């Protein structure tokens, strides 16, 4: 307790959250269903944090994130299915694999600006879904990929036991751990030479170049790291639900993750996590609530759309905005002010 008192309030809150996260599965009201939803929230936190690098840190619209998620999930699924690789080996492989795909897609396309780039990424994610659906020899197509082995900790090599992950609790802790690692990496990157270069690109590309920043290189790095986190999220997903099918990686997933970022506050690590938590839980609540009201479950997408419209109208920079994005959202007004100011100066 004494240590807790000495900490700053910000750290206290974080430690509190961590303790809560660690004891959560043992609280009396926590059912398996609730735990499942929370793991889903954590998974989307990882995905949203990964995506956040591209629109949040670099200011580029990426509509094809789910493509990397899908690639990660299927690679992990197939490697487990055919080669029986351990999850702990697959995670670094997935990271590298995702990064490679990010470079392959990013290097030729990141020369494009704004909307053109967004359209290419969108096309890419559709391509991934088509590939997964049609290359039946590899992915079994629309039949899906069932029977992926769950995660296990295998210590038999060292004469220890083999412990398979059964039920939600071990996955819950695994997800907590993965979120912690992701948040850690994001914080470190944010406060580094690499992060500053990204923020410079987001703020003013011309000025960034004049400081010696190679735009293409840094955008490709951002895209690769973002893709790598997408693929890691996909690997976790594959080994958690143990079943994959191509329609899990449709375009609207990308859109949903993008919504989480926009809702929470683009570029803000905590905001993005809140966005993920809000949208995933809302989706589950509506799934139960809508049938009671006599509405089909699909209506929840209408609700998401409505939320986004309201956000854009009243709080365009998100729940926890960062100054850079808030300023971009106000860009029109700011420009007019600047013009007025410069006219005033000349007088």
């Amino acid at each position, binding site marked *: 307790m004494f240590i807790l008192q000495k900490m700053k309030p910000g750290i206290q809150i974080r430690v509190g959250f961590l303790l809560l996260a660690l004891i959560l599965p043992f609280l009396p009201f926590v059912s398996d269903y609730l735990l499942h939803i929370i793991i889903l929230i954590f998974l989307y936190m990882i995905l949203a944090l990964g995506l956040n690098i591209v629109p949040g840190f670099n200011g580029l619209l990426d509509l094809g994130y789910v493509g990397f998620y899908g690639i990660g999930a299927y690679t992990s699924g197939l490697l487990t299915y055919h080669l029986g690789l351990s999850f702990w080996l697959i995670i670094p492989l997935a990271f590298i694999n995702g990064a490679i795909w990010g470079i392959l897609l990013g290097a030729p396309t990141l020369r494009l600006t704004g909307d053109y780039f967004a359209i290419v990424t969108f096309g890419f994610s559709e391509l991934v879904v088509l590939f997964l659906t049609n290359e039946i020899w590899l992915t079994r197509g629309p039949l899906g990929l069932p029977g992926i082995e769950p995660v296990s900790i295998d210590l038999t090599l060292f004469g220890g036991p083999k412990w398979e992950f059964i039920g939600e609790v071990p996955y819950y802790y695994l997800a907590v751990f993965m979120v912690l690692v992701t948040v850690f990496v994001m914080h*470190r990157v944010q406060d580094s*030479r*690499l*992060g500053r270069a990204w*923020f*410079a690109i987001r703020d003013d590309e011309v000025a960034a170049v*004049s400081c010696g*920043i190679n735009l293409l290189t840094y955008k490709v790095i951002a895209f690769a790291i973002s893709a790598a986190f997408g693929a890691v999220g996909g690997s976790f997903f594959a080994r958690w639900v143990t079943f994959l099918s191509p329609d899990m990686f449709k375009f609207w997933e990308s859109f949903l993750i993008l919504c989480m970022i926009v809702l929470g506050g683009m570029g803000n690590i905590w905001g993005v996590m809140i966005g993920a938590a809000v949208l995933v839980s809302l989706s589950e609540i509506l799934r139960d609530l809508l049938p009671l009201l006599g509405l089909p479950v699909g209506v929840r997408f209408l609700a998401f759309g409505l939320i986004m419209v309201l956000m854009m109208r009243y709080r365009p920079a998100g729940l926890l905005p960062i100054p850079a994005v808030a*300023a971009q959202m106000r860009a029109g007004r700011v420009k007019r002010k600047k013009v007025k100011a410069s006219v005033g100066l000349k007088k």
Partner: protein
Amino acid sequence: MTPILSIERLFKRFGGLVALRDIRFDINQGEIVGLIGPNGAGKTTLFNCVAGVERPTGGRIIFAGKNRSVSLVGKKPETVTALGIARTFQNIRLFDNMTVLDNVKIGRHCRTRSLFFGAVIRHRAQRKEEKAITDSAHRFLEFVGLQGLGGEIASSMPYGHQRRLEIARALATEPRLLMLDEPAAGMNPQESLDLMNLIRRIRDRGITILLIEHDMKVVMGVCERVVVINYGEWLAEGAPQEVQDNPKVIEAYLGTGAANAA
């Protein structure tokens, strides 16, 4: 004296418009050279050609690098910066939403190297580099007179400070040639005087300066040599007083008749 920058027979066309025609002049090591001319004369285009933002249509730009001379034609802006040419912009281009200190830190970018793994692992070399970046950023802020303002948001500072910050950021790239595009625009007389002092102090550090400026007090006060261009063509060159009395220059600024009247 060896020229640090030689511009030889430089042409730049934008479609049918000839923005620069047969421009040639040299800048010597350690000089403060002013580049003047009426609005639309092509001064900023010339800057952009040197900085690698625009590709010249013809001619050569030779920069005496640390070890050997290099042609700047076709070089990318970030390469030009790495070679040792820094610039500021006519309409200030800061990273508006970042702190003053971060702005200068980004200027250190091309002289440092850590990337993703350095950022995540923070090994010793990376920590050392990060500390060096912060220390030198503070030094550059102090040099331009913005010490203690590192935590401010760049866009929240007064105009004169923003100009200084832009210069600090350019200096942080360790240039050998610094190109300033209208640094005194919108400054009051006191701020202009301070700016002239700053420019001299930068030169005293061994940095050559090329300056576009409309404020004649600044040009006359600080430049050792002035190049005049008009309608994209070289018009005159020489010591400030000489250029000021040149009838062709007066004509270019004030129109025909004015030269005779004077």
